[in-house]
């Protein structure tokens, strides 16, 4: 059967050479190379569960009275969107499971993307010729964050309403184009009648399509350029070492897909996420104290809380206080990330293509910078929940906020110093045994040293 199919396809499409090359494509084995795969597979889970949810979700802000099986909200006025989400959660068999899996898959997706990006950053896989995939990957991160936000805002519960107001204020604050931006994206002064349909269109059609295309390009480029290797015997810029796609790599990767799916299913089944029925429907007059965005936007929220209230007047024009932490700061963060491969090339004059990864301790500055940025983001994330921390610890929000304003600079600096020191001492310890020859690429040194960890997968 398969043979017949293969033969008939080949006699029409001249497939054999391509298929043979594909089956024999070499992929290096290392656990850290699975992070991108996990992101890919959680995207697949997002699409599967998302399509199912879309069959039930009613993207409308029309006001209705609820008379469903969740008695506590009986007779309450709410939008059709929120009502359909309640119906999905309480009346559709496995509907709640699908909704929770979808939300968890988004969190796993973003977590995997960030972990994957950290692996790329700390092993310097972004160097030539892979800058292009670094840029594509970052773009996918941006779109993933946007779609995560759109997704949990669509449901139109009280918590997401708070997030929507803040998103509106952030977009509105952009100089010159702000009002146009906010009105085009959210359909007017939130909560406008068109807000939910706009977000639905973007969440379901535009952003996933962009991400899907970028994934295809990302994978195509990996295929074309071949994967990087960790330093080790025979792993040079001219050779790739790994296992072939067929059959064991295929089986393992497919197995990973099912394991990721299983992990998301167990999270969706056993761990509650976004219990919209507890928050209640959106109410323009009410606000939830202690409200936080999902974690991947917590750093923006933290910056908004820590940034002092400073307005800027340019002539008769206003740059509101929200602009600096809400627009300028994320723009700078992503601009630096986008430009990082070029900046490094500019500083190091290293424009050669690299196929062997650099280990974190081999470049103390890079590693220390990465660690410092991570700690910076974690402090901002904590600042995004400072009211919750204050309530839990009994400290006053004002005192906590002034402390965090100091820590947000001090802790990254300390982290930088410590991680720099660790890298330098590791470098020294290794160079005692094998003095590095200057001008020789790290990969060659490592090969001659032969003391480095290499793939343990057999």
């Amino acid at each position: 059967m398969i043979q017949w199919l293969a033969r008939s396809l080949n006699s029409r499409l001249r497939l054999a050479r391509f298929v043979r090359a594909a089956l024999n494509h070499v992929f290096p084995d290392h656990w850290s190379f699975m992070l991108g795969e996990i992101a890919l597979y959680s995207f697949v889970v997002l699409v599967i569960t998302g399509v199912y949810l879309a069959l039930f979700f009613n993207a409308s802000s029309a006001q209705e009275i609820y008379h469903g099986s969740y008695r506590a909200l009986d007779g309450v006025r709410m939008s059709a969107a929120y009502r359909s989400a309640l119906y999905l959660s309480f009346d559709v068999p496995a509907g709640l499971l699908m909704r929770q899996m979808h939300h968890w898959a988004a969190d796993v997706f973003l977590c995997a993307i960030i972990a994957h990006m950290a692996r790329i950053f700390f092993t310097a896989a972004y160097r030539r010729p892979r800058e292009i995939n670094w840029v594509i990957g970052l773009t996918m991160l941006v779109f993933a964050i946007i779609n995560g936000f759109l997704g949990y805002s669509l449901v139109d519960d009280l918590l997401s309403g708070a997030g929507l107001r803040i998103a509106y204020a952030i977009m509105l604050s952009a100089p010159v184009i702000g009002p146009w931006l906010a009105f085009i994206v959210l359909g007017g002064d939130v909560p406008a009648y068109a807000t939910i349909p706009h977000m639905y269109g973007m969440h379901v059609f535009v952003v996933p399509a962009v991400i899907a295309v970028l994934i295809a390009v990302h994978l195509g480029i990996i295929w074309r350029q071949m994967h990087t290797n960790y330093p080790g015997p025979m792993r040079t810029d001219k050779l790739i070492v790994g296992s072939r796609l067929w059959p064991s790599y295929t089986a393992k990767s497919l197995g990973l897909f099912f394991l990721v799916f299983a992990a998301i299913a167990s999270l969706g089944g056993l761990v509650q996420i976004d219990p919209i029925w507890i928050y209640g429907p959106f109410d323009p007059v009410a606000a939830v104290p202690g409200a936080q965005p999902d974690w991947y936007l917590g750093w923006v929220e933290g910056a908004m809380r820590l940034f002092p209230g400073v307005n800027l007047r340019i002539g008769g024009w206003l740059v509101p206080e929200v602009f600096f932490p809400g627009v300028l700061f994320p723009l700078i963060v992503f601009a630096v990330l986008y430009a990082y491969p070029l900046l490094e090339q500019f500083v190091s004059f290293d424009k050669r293509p690299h196929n062997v990864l650099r280990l974190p301790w081999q470049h103390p500055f890079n590693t220390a910078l990465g660690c410092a940025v991570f700690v910076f983001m974690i402090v901002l994330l904590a600042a995004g929940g400072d009211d919750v921390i204050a309530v839990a610890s009994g400290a006053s929000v004002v005192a906590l906020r002034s402390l965090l304003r100091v820590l947000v600079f001090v802790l990254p600096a300390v982290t930088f110093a410590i991680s720099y020191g660790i890298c330098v001492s590791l470098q020294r310890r290794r160079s005692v045994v094998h003095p590095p020859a200057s001008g020789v690429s790290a990969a060659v040194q490592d090969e001659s040293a032969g003391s480095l960890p290499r793939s343990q997968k057999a």
Partner: protein
Amino acid sequence: MSEDRSREDELSGRKQKHASAFELLVTMSVLGWEAFRSVARILARKSSGETSSTVLSHPEPLLLDRAADKAGTPSGRDLDLETPESAHRADWGTLLVALAFAASVTAGVGFLIFYWSGGGNMLLGGTLALCLGFFGAALVLSARWLMRHREAVEPREDFSSSDTEREAAFEDYCAGAREVRSRALLKWMAAVGLGMFATMFVSLMRGLGSPSGQSLFDTVWKRGQRLMTADGKPVTSNSLQPGDSITVFPEDSIGSEKAQTVLIRVNAQLLRLPGDRSDWAPMGYLAYSRVCTHAGCPVGLYEAESHLLLCPCHQSTFNVLDAAQPTGGPAARPLPQLPLYADADGNLRAGSGFSEPPGPGFWEMP
């Protein structure tokens, strides 16, 4: 309050109902996993003991014809399925994979049973996870036990095309371009056409939402409108005691997001309003926009002792005695104030619109 209570009751009821099923599921899966792992460990020890002699017996790399032979021999483990010892390994591997697959099918059947009988979220999610997880495990196990793994070494191709290829491509492009008779017209078509299509496309965005109306500047309230509570009762000068606060709306748009206003009564002697607002607060009644000037959240909390309005989103505070100037947190602009007066019947009415457009700041904000 009672609504909250009933919600909690329902939730705790749900939780209890699921708790026993959940515990059973967790115990079963933990036990199953442990049993499975101990069997796997015994099998692995047995089989690796038997096959250790065959490891590295065929160090020849699996190279394609295009691969470089000078690469040398890879030192990866290479299990040869032809030897009798590893035939054992294949047997044990088959058993393991079959076990995992059977577990997956069992869990899948469990999922179907729970689905059709209306099982709860935890049972559905748990069985689905076990089904998919064991299936994934079966695949990974089959890769580890039933497939030979050899390290492959291959030369990498250059990232760039060779100079001759590049020049040939460029030459073909130029040859084609030379054949075009009127290149200028085509260039104009490309430039103007693209510009036109882009402008048309961008213009379509206008329909999605346009701030060109006055809605951003709209201060909602008009002179003479009565202040109404959320349930539609007019507010009179006797409605509040000093220290109290309520949310009020204009009489024609009750419940409106943008018009929501917090009405506070304070001791009139404490007021420090600017001179031109001296008659805006009759009998100590103060009205401010309830939409935070920072990020647009409802400024919901009033602390009567400190006379502060607090925004729950980012903890900005505004001093109501002092025309709602920000005193802490990230807000930079005061809450717009609504001038008030009391009519002959004692009803509180708006003297005009808000002192500034309500809501978060924007570029053209006065």
